[in-house]
């Protein structure tokens, strides 16, 4: 039969190869996205676990902080409980000595007794000093003593390494950031699942939209990967843990 020389013959060999390439490409995308889903799911559960640990740590730190503050306040309270007794003896020693001096010429026997009593009170005051735990009271020559509660407490808190290491507010902030990261990762799982669905539909579809679906799924996978890197490095959705 004679062929119309103006009409080229149809190239039936190239159409099935393009179709095969598209199918393989979509299969690869499906495989990669599936693996990414598994990875992101693992990372999100890990982030959730870290967030949970940080939640517990924050609560425990708060409790220990209150406990430590209570302990230091207790030390000061015990000192203040003891202080009036110390003050009593210190003042008595000074006052009795002064009185003895006043009576020394007019009533020597009474002055002698007051002398000895004053010395006794001085020893009593001294005997109580070891029981002060926060700070030792200062005493002036007139026997007046002072216990600066705020100063002692401030110094105890400044010297407490345990208190300095307890930062529950920071732990709570870190926990919140970890939760945010976990939520972002869960969102990514859903996003990748959507990409997977799109590419899967494209894989089984025979319509002209097949190519578009493949392209959409591929772009989505790339965008999701970029978002994953940003979330893991802390630029998005919480700290990098």
């Amino acid at each position: 039969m004679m062929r119309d020389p103006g009409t080229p013959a149809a190239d039936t060999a190239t159409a099935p190869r393009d179709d095969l390439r598209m199918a393989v490409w979509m299969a690869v995308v499906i495989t990669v996205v599936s693996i990414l889903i598994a990875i992101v799911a693992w990372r999100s559960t890990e982030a959730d676990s870290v967030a949970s640990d940080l939640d517990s740590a924050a609560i425990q730190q708060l409790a220990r902080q209150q406990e430590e503050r209570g302990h230091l306040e207790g030390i000061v309270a015990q000192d203040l409980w003891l202080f009036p007794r110390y003050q009593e003896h210190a003042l008595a020693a000074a006052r009795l000595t002064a009185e003895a001096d006043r009576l020394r010429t007019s009533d020597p026997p009474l002055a002698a007794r007051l002398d000895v009593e004053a010395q006794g009170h001085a020893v009593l005051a001294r005997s109580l000093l070891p029981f002060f735990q926060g700070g030792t009271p200062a005493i002036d020559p007139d026997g007046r003593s002072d216990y600066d509660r705020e100063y002692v407490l401030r110094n105890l808190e400044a010297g407490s390494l345990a208190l300095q290491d307890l930062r529950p507010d920071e732990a709570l902030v870190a926990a919140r950031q970890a939760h945010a990261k976990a939520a972002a990762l869960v969102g990514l799982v859903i996003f990748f699942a959507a990409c997977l669905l799109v590419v899967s539909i494209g894989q089984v579809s025979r319509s002209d939209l097949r190519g578009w679906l493949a392209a959409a799924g591929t772009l989505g996978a790339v965008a999701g990967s970029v978002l994953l890197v940003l979330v893991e490095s802390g630029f998005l959705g919480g700290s990098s843990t």
Partner: protein
Amino acid sequence: MTDLPDIDLPDPDRLRGRLSRAIAILIGITTLATAYVAFLQHEAAAANTDASLRAQRLGIQAAENRFVSEQRAQVDLHAYATAVEQRQHAANLRQQARALGGAEARGLLVEADTWTRMAERTDEITTVRVDAPDGPDRDPAFPRRFIAASSREAIRLAALQDAVNDESSGWGERSSACTAILAIFAVALYLFGFSLTVERVRVRALYATVGVALFIAGSGWAALGAVDPPRLAPDEAADAYADGRLALDTAWDATGYQEAYDRLSRAIELRPGFARAYVERSDSAFRLGSPQRSGFFSISSPEWLERSTADLVRAHELGSREIKVLADLGFQRFLQGIQARRPELLEQSIAATRQALALTPGDPVVRYNLAVALLAAGRAGEARAAYADAVRATAFLDVDAGVAREDPYGEEAYLAGALTDLGLLESFRPELAEEIAEVRASIVTGVAAGANPPAPASPGASGPSTLVVSGLAADVFPSTVQWRARLDGFDPDRDQLAVQWLVRDPAGLGWAVLPEVSSLSVAPIPNSEAPGAFFHLDSYTTAITPPTCLPMGTYRVELYSGGRLVGQAETASAFGEFDALSVRDVGVVLCRPRGWEPAPGRELGLVAGSRSPDGQEGAYVFHVQQPRLDEDPGGTSLRTIESTMAAHAGLLPGRATWVESSGTDDRYFLGLDGGRWRWYRYDGGLVRIGAGVASHGGVTVALVFGPDAWFDGEEWQRIVESIGPYE
């Protein structure tokens, strides 16, 4: 048309059928595996929740226990303090009866007995026992050990909580892993299922292969997790840790630190991942190798430094990011860096110290550590700026708010640590000596100025300092240090004198500043016998808790004024190992040879003593309450010496009589009025006794006794020189 080559392919229908069957089997296996992992995940989640709740419960128990135990200990302590007061009342009344005599003496003695019985009744309501290891007779730092012991259970519960936290984290990780494995299996199942819908064999095989790979990966992960489940550390680890912590908190000598080290080692042996135990053991190791006994520790032997650093590194690896870990690691890297001349260790030091500083910007210790590391690393400009920040942090509790620290002893302690570190740097890097000297003078001046830097000189001021120090000499006794010097041009209104005492241990590990006898502002005492000469005496034994005598070593005193070092002198101690005997109720402290025991005849408020194990040598101190008499204090002292020797003759090995031929010395005695000294003799031995009168009239007496030959040596003189007032 071209002919395609003949390829002998299997029947597509047969291929699809075989593959499909295989995939179907894989789907079944994967589903079963998923169910098992779901069970494991549930088990892990339940265990995690249980552990988390146990940890919270332990935390609450620890807090409650600490509160209750400490309250009980404080109540016991106050009851004991009341008993001490009551006994002292009784002792005072007996002294009054002795001093006043007469008819009322009997009444006073009856009242004294009443107070004594009250004290005995009060003893019944307290758990403090005088001769217990944490009691006043055996704990020089009483009531530190007694109070610390009350927190042991709380420490143990906190350690248990830490272990349970670890267990909870382990279960949490396992639960997360199971969830991830479930996700992997879900993806594998999806791929298996999807592969059944695909026509092309190659594509189907690809999906199936990836699915199998994911299944194998998930199964392997699950198997690993099942083999080694999270385990709770034995409770004994918490017990050992609590004991080690207590030992460390109450230690003051090598014995105590060794006990702490051993117990913490046991805790680590039982629980190798116990970060906290590594931190505490690191501390005890450093202190074990250190000749220092107070202040901020900077010096340690190379062996113990290495062990300490290894523990800190391990704690850091286990996730500990506490201030102490970062700061100590930073400082120890500095020590290693200068000892081994390794710049990379100095850089590590700077990095770790900066991390610590970020957590505690107001801590002077960390700031000084950073400054000295920068100086060692050759970054002089940064070092100077860091030292300026450190000086500000020393003077101010809150630099930004301008809240002054107002704690001269604390500020001196920070300065002492900084100067000790500079001394260490100088010993390993002598080429930096000039720079270090400038920095030293600068920070001493800065800290001495404190929160109130000196105002510019006003027109009426006496002009710049003309102080010239010459003839500076250092004297060291077992309990006190003294410097003597000519201070020409010294104006107490213009010249602020700062004094730093340093000691180098016999092993030569380094010069350590003694903050207890160093001061940022000293008022030297004029020597009445030599115009222009001054001296200053500082008691070490009464300034340190627990009271301790000065260690053996070489001592150096440095005087600073006007921003510069104006004098320094060295001397070596020659007095041997002494321990402190501190008797607060008598108001005296002295240093006695190591190994001496409490002497008989103790009477509260009146007499206390110590003697050699064979009883041949000893020392006693007395405080006699008596009226202030209108007579020469020297006469009062002598009368009291005579009455004391008569009343307490039984305390000596033999009856002693005054050696008249040796006369009476009117020497210094505790800075009291009427200081007098005499020699007494008994069969085979001598007594050296001194007394002085306090401003309120009471008389303090001290004596040493021993065989004649003992007085040929210097030990008795060291004891006498060490006697000091104890307020």
